[in-house]
């Protein structure tokens, strides 16, 4: 009895979870494996379109002979690179039509024209013409004829399914001298974006945790950048930072803080001298990181605020009795209480910043030294149209991510053991 109950429970559970599991597996897990497959292939964007036989039907009347009609089919192979095999053709005609010139490749039975065109090489084109006459002498309705569409069919190889593999993509990705630069850019972007958003998160959370008028309003406002659509925000920032008529540059010029406009998103390096040391700052990358911090510190804020509100008040009261200063209270009570949240946040944000595509793409498109790995996936796959290369870069991302997760969980596991 108990056994059957457990069985029905199992069955029900599988029925309930199956739709969700199938969908997630087919759209998320399967593509990750498909990526591995594609990354070992030489595939370009134009190869993935399946070649199709196509026919454009043109109906022409013949002068002085209203009972006859000429039909021209412009046949072609849609692919420029692949052949189509065993092309078959079918078209239907009204019941009073008789064919006048039957092509040897075709047959006409029951008002149905069937043809076997054989193999079409890439770029194949042919003008195929047939003439019909009505057998009862009635005139022909051209519109009706046009509305019947011919059916074509053919076989072709799917370039994705053959078994020609190559290591070329990975060699190109890993050994071209840009790779180190790409990694460094991604790392700077990820690391400083993560640290910055956490620091601002701590500051704002500490701030909102105090009592002041308009506190709930402030909390909503702080979350605005995180909930608003990235497209709108990125273009607003672009206008704000525009070197020619952007608000920021105009303001700085107006108050004589700078003498010439700075192209914050289009300039790769800027020379800065602090205390006599000259160094080059990666300007566009810094701006993009700023945007990143601006957009994602609300998340850190939300997490840290929730944690701050859970710290028992007694701790602070005890510190007050001992005569601790506000800074002592912050460093000795608040900070130790939020380290756990910060380490979780660091991992979450690190992983997501590492994969962030939209922000950089919309702000700079990857120009002026802001090309990160995700941007490279897009550029290889869709700008250079090399799908195989794009896949190979994706695989590199996945591997780096797995490595990062592995180290992180190992560290986390160690800390849990210590506690």
């Amino acid at each position, binding site marked *: 009895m108990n056994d059957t109950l457990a069985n029905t429970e*199992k069955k029900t*559970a599988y*029925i*309930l*979870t199956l739709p*969700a599991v199938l*969908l*997630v597996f087919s*759209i998320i897990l399967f*593509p*990750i494996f*498909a*990526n591995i497959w*594609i990354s070992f292939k030489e*595939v370009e964007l134009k190869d*993935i*379109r*399946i070649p199709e036989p196509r026919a454009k039907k043109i109906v022409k009347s013949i002068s002085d002979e209203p009972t006859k009609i000429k039909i021209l089919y412009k046949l072609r192979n849609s692919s420029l690179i692949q052949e189509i095999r065993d092309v078959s053709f079918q078209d239907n005609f009204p019941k009073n039509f008789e064919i006048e010139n039957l092509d040897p490749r075709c047959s006409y039975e029951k008002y149905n024209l069937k043809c076997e065109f054989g193999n079409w090489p890439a770029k194949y084109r042919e003008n195929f013409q047939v003439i019909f006459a009505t057998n009862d002498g009635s005139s022909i309705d051209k519109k009706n004829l046009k509305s019947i569409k011919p059916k074509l069919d053919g076989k072709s190889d799917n370039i*994705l399914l053959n078994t020609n593999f190559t290591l070329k993509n990975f060699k190109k990705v890993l050994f071209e001298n840009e790779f180190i630069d790409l990694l460094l850019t991604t790392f700077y972007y990820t690391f400083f974006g993560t640290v910055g958003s956490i620091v601002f998160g701590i*500051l*704002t959370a500490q*701030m909102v945790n105090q009592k*002041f008028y308009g506190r709930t309003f*402030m909390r909503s*406002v702080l*979350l*605005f950048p995180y*909930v*608003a*659509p*990235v*497209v*709108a*925000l990125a*273009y*607003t920032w672009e*206008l*704000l930072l525009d070197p020619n*008529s952007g608000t920021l540059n*105009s*303001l700085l010029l*107006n108050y*004589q803080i700078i003498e010439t406009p700075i192209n914050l998103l289009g300039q790769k390096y800027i020379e800065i001298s602090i205390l006599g040391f000259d160094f080059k700052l990666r300007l566009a990358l810094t701006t993009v990181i700023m945007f990143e911090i*601006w957009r994602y510190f609300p*998340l850190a804020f*939300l997490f840290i605020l929730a944690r701050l509100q859970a710290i028992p008040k007694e701790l602070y009261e005890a510190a007050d009795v001992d005569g601790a*200063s506000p800074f002592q209270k912050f460093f000795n009570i608040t900070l130790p209480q939020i380290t756990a949240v910060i380490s979780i946040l660091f991992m979450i944000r690190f992983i*997501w*910043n*590492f*994969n962030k*595509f939209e922000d950089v793409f*919309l702000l700079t498109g990857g120009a002026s030294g802001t090309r990160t790995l*995700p941007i490279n*996936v897009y550029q290889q*796959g869709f700008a250079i149209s090399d*799908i195989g290369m794009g896949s190979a870069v*994706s695989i590199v991302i*996945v591997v780096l991510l797995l490595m990062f*997760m592995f180290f992180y969980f190992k560290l986390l596991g160690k800390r849990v053991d210590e506690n």
Partner: protein
Amino acid sequence: MRIKNTILFSLISTFFLIFLISIWKILATLQGLSINSFNIEIILIFGFLISLAHLGIGDRIKSIYKSIIFSSIFVFCDGYLIQKLPIWYNVGVFLILYFFTNKISKYTFIGLKEEHSTQVILFDFLTLFGILFFSFVILFPFYMMLVTSFKTQIALLVNPLDFSINFGQDIKDLFKSYFVIFKSYKFGKYIVISTIVSVGTVIITLLFAIPAAYAVARLNFFGKTFLSTSILIIYMFPAIVLVIPLYTIFSQLGLRNSIEGLLIVYTATTLPVAIYMLQGYFKSIPKELEEAAILDKLSWFGIITKIIIPLSIPAISSVALYVFMIAWNEFLFSLMFLDNPNSFTLSRAIQYLSGDAETPRQYLMAGSVVVTLPVLFIFVYFEKYLVSGLTAGSVKG
């Protein structure tokens, strides 16, 4: 010690005043006033003197009168002797000074003798500074987005700092950018598509997620722990690595440029977090209710629809709002899958609009306002639900 504290207090408060006045000046500049300098030195001296005078006078004058006197002196010196600016600007300065003198009125000579008093003051002013600074930094781009959409191309080029809106003009001229994007750029259609896609994603996600979350929360079956841990790990996998395979597969299946294609992908990417959020809530529902239902011979379908769903409306709404927000804001997949202007979502349409260098920026900003307003409205109105959604689903970036 007392002198050091007094000077520190005056300095800290003065810097705060300089910050306040500078922000006010920037805002005034953006209304078309020509102010070319922050006059930091003058404010520094005045602020310092006001702080000192405040401590010196102490309780001898009622604090309201004290504030009014200080503010008036400052406005008189700053506004009329130095800058010659319109009345509304000086009223603003007066209010800022009034606010400032009120803020410093709680600090007294005697208070400065206490232990850590400078640190307390620094903390107080840093908090005030932070509130204003972050409000400004966050709201300013939104303000600019809104205001730019009401300007004309020429006005923006003539004086890029003048953001004043002429409310006297005809409504048609004021909202011209909005009329244009709805008429010539078919934004009405894109709103409909975005809404269909977002609402559709919410419905399908809930249909799939509620049963699955119930199974994970309540039933025992082989592979349960594997499923619940893999949910989150899957969610960590970035969209960018899915893009190329999905693009190739969708191209070959003819799913690109279709709403169905977007719905499938959006549902799949939001499902893991929806299941995760819901199962956490379902676990908190007392088991006794279901046991009673089983005795009443209710099937699992009955249990879910009659007990679980009615009891978890708050959790379901926060999942729904969160998923809606993700789907509405989504950009990467809509960029990849849509290249026919007839099937654009709002985000994709704005990106398409910006691709043409000739597009006037006010149209772009009007489009941005159109895509941002619904989300912000929903967020402010349902903040309680959305915040819990954001915290639980925060792995999404």
